[in-house]
């Protein structure tokens, strides 16, 4: 710690004199008073950042669980139940996002962006996954942000928040997912869709892979349009996206070429290898 350097020069310094000097600092001098307020300001800022990090972690965990839930969806009767449950989960996530929005009132969002970005990306991934299952299309960033406009729910909240005369709409909070976070979330979505493709084949669903191939190709085209003009993180995800697309395309190829030869219940085995599909013996 900071005591180290004193010990080294110990024999050179008259200890008593130094202590006297330090005690001469007036604790209520203008400088010290300023620094006390700096301490308060920094502590407040750090506390807020930490609260946001915690919220972001909660958002990430619950979003991930929603994604796992949605992977269990099939066109079987319980599919509707799964969708309903996923909506409940996403509502819980949105409640956390509302808390984020409340923390950020009056703040510059970009000062705390690094704290909340991971959570928001994961939410985009979960929300867009659910949307795809329902509609077979990609949710837009506007649609996502529309769901992130919150109003005061109950009287308790209304009395707790001080109504500012500057607010045009009192007790409304909203969070705008930035285009970059949206893109990163969609990029992660493609990984989940790739898994969906492989598992749907195992369920005997041989239509979904082809739909997914189309869909992913469109997303891929979109990303290549952006190319290198986006931030570094986007370019990094592009690489994984390309791999996911390749896996889906290969799955479609295998289905097309060998699908009629292989009994449906064996199809899962054909797709069981994680990397390139291994060339298997014909006539299983």
């Amino acid at each position: 710690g900071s005591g180290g350097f004193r010990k080294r020069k110990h024999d050179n310094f008259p200890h008593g004199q130094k202590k006297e000097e330090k005690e001469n600092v007036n604790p209520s001098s203008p400088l010290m008073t300023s620094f006390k307020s700096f301490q308060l300001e920094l502590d407040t800022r750090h506390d807020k950042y930490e609260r946001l990090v915690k919220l972001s972690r909660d958002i990430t965990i619950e979003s991930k669980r929603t994604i796992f839930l949605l992977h269990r969806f099939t066109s079987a009767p319980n599919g509707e139940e799964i969708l309903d449950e996923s909506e409940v989960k996403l509502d819980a996530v949105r409640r956390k996002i509302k808390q984020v929005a409340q923390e950020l009132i009056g703040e510059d969002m970009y000062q705390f962006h690094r704290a909340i970005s991971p959570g928001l990306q994961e939410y985009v991934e979960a929300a867009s996954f659910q949307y795809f299952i329902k509609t077979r299309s990609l949710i837009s960033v506007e649609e996502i942000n529309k769901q992130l406009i919150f109003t005061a729910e109950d009287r308790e909240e209304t009395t707790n928040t001080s109504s500012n005369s500057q607010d045009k709409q009192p007790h409304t909070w909203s969070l705008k997912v930035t285009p970059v976070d949206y893109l990163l979330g969609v990029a992660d979505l493609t990984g989940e869709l790739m898994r969906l493709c492989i598992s749907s084949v195992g369920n005997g669903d041989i239509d979904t892979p082809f739909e997914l191939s189309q869909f992913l190709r469109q997303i891929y085209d979109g990303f290549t349009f952006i190319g290198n003009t986006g931030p570094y993180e986007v370019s990094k995800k592009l690489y994984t996206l390309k791999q996911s697309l390749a896996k889906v395309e290969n799955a479609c190829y295998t289905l097309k070429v060998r699908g009629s030869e292989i009994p449906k219940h064996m199809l899962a085995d054909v797709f069981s290898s994680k990397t390139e599909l291994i060339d298997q013996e014909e006539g299983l």
Partner: protein
Amino acid sequence: VPKKCQKAREHFGTVRTQMESLKTKFPADQYYRFHEHWRFVLQRLVFLAAFVVYLESETLVTREAVAEILGIEADRERGFHLDIEDYLSGVLTLASELARLAVNSVTAGDYSRPLRISTFINELDSGFRLLNLKNDSLRKRYDGLKYDVKKIEEVVYDLSIRGLNKEATGGVGGEK
């Protein structure tokens, strides 16, 4: 010294003009989105402002005063502002420069300045000790402060064992 300070103040006029222009380049509520672009420069400017003010008055320039010198706001609410961490970073750079000034003052024969610098730096150090810092660049820079404190203490010590500061303090207390 006063004349040099005056000249330095004039240079700040140019700074103010350029700040005006910088302010217009982006939406006011996205300051932190682009913050990193000017962070380094702003910290250096804080240091320079603090240095001028110290040479003039031997006090620590306040955030508000720096903001005025640079032609920007002190609070975020009012627009392009000085972030507290940038202010503190600039002040820490001042500490290093004052350590250097203490050494060179002695070389130049001014034996009283180091003592005054020492008092100032000790107070500054006490102030910084109040802060709970995170392990970021500000913290690293703060860790350097103790070396500045030590250097100045060494200068003061060197003077005191040779009785040189007695000549100096004789003048401070009032001429005999």
